[in-house]
């Protein structure tokens, strides 16, 4: 029997319970960063909203709002549980322009670039990605298998 653990907006969850499904709903310009270690069967998911914490004096109250603060914590939590950098599978989902037909603000793209830059500087390869466009996405990570399912009102597919 699967147990759903919700990762809400600006939130992060880690699980090593094989019955667990980590799920985050309604990604627009936000991005789900999904890490999974297939040897240890441990997974982590962060629902991040914004690229850069420098706009916020109180950013440390919730670091998972921001790529620059949250991403390192996500990795450190997996390392603490014994996951090795080389075995972690990294997936990025979201970063669309749901409300921004004219691509005027591009927060989704800015989030994506911030994540890419940080991963690249730390020699982390992105294994899977489903980024951009104008659709919303809900993401599920199955801890027993590492399977990632992406869905919205119109479709559902495995990443």
């Amino acid at each position, binding site marked *: 029997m*699967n147990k*759903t653990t*919700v990762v*809400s*907006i*600006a939130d992060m969850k880690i699980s090593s319970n094989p019955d667990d499904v980590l799920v985050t*709903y*309604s*990604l*627009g*310009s*936000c991005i789900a960063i999904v890490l999974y270690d297939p040897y240890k069967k441990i997974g982590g998911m962060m629902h991040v*909203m*914004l*690229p*850069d914490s420098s*706009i*916020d004096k109180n*950013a440390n*109250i*919730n670091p998972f*709002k921001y790529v620059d603060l949250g991403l390192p914590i996500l990795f450190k939590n997996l390392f603490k549980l014994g996951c090795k950098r080389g075995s972690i599978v990294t997936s990025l989902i979201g970063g*669309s322009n*749901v*409300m*921004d*037909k*004219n691509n*005027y*603000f*591009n*927060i989704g793209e*800015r989030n994506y670039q911030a994540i890419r830059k940080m991963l690249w500087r730390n020699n982390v390869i992105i294994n899977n990605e489903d980024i951009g466009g*104008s*659709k*919303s996405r*809900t993401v599920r990570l199955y801890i027993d298998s590492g399977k990632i399912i992406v869905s*919205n*009102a119109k479709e559902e597919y495995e990443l």
Partner: protein
Amino acid sequence: MMLMKDLVQAIEFLPAFNQNALKAMELIRSDNYTNKRLSDIIKLDASLSANILKISNSALYAKPKQIYDVSTAISLLGKQQIYSLLTLISTQSYFADLLDGYEVYKGELWEHNLAVAVIAENLAYLEKNVDKSILFTAGLLHDIGKIILSIWVKKEANRIDELVDKENFDFIDAEKTVLGFTHSDIGAAILKHWNFPEQIINSAKYHHDDKLFNDPIVRLVTLADFLSFTIGFLAQKDNMYMKSYDQVLKYYNIKTKDVEKMIADNIDKVLNIINEFKLIDRGQ
């Protein structure tokens, strides 16, 4: 196509808005206001009183001491907060069923409305002359028309989607074309039926008006609506782009950094209030 008589009937069949809450809200906006008069009205309604006490003592307000009676809650929170709370308590049940013309999961529309209410109130600084006391309520009720229109939108979802996806219609224009009414028209009719003040009716009626209705409350609700969608509330339905958003962004001259700052400034409070007024039960 929905007929006028369907609409009139649907509005009359809605459970009536809490009359004691309405009376209390009218008093707050009148010249006769006193704390005593307000608490006298609220105390008549046991469930309203209990709810106000519960929320006054919740993490939302973080008061150092337990509040035991309505009069103390009124003096500590102030009439403006009480006004918002009265709407909040009385409105939640209208969104308690799945409104599947507009949402995938039950409660998504409610979360979106909470976000718009909080953000509209927090953005009051953008306007010089604005009646701040009703911004929260205007935001919370701007989409109330969807509680009636949902089943009609669901029925005609294919035709509406086709107009939006292939013909490049705004969602609101697709509603008008296919159903004959928009959720804005119906929202305004409901709020009028419930005797809400004109400015709150206007926010429901004009938040998608592509000429940007000339009222600071409507402008702020429109901007908050855009920001809530941008954060991702209600984004499961990904065809909610409207021209009115472009108008309001231009009006306030808002740039990428401003959007990010506004999201950053508001999200904690939005998540707090969502947590306090939970409706979502996504099950498995």
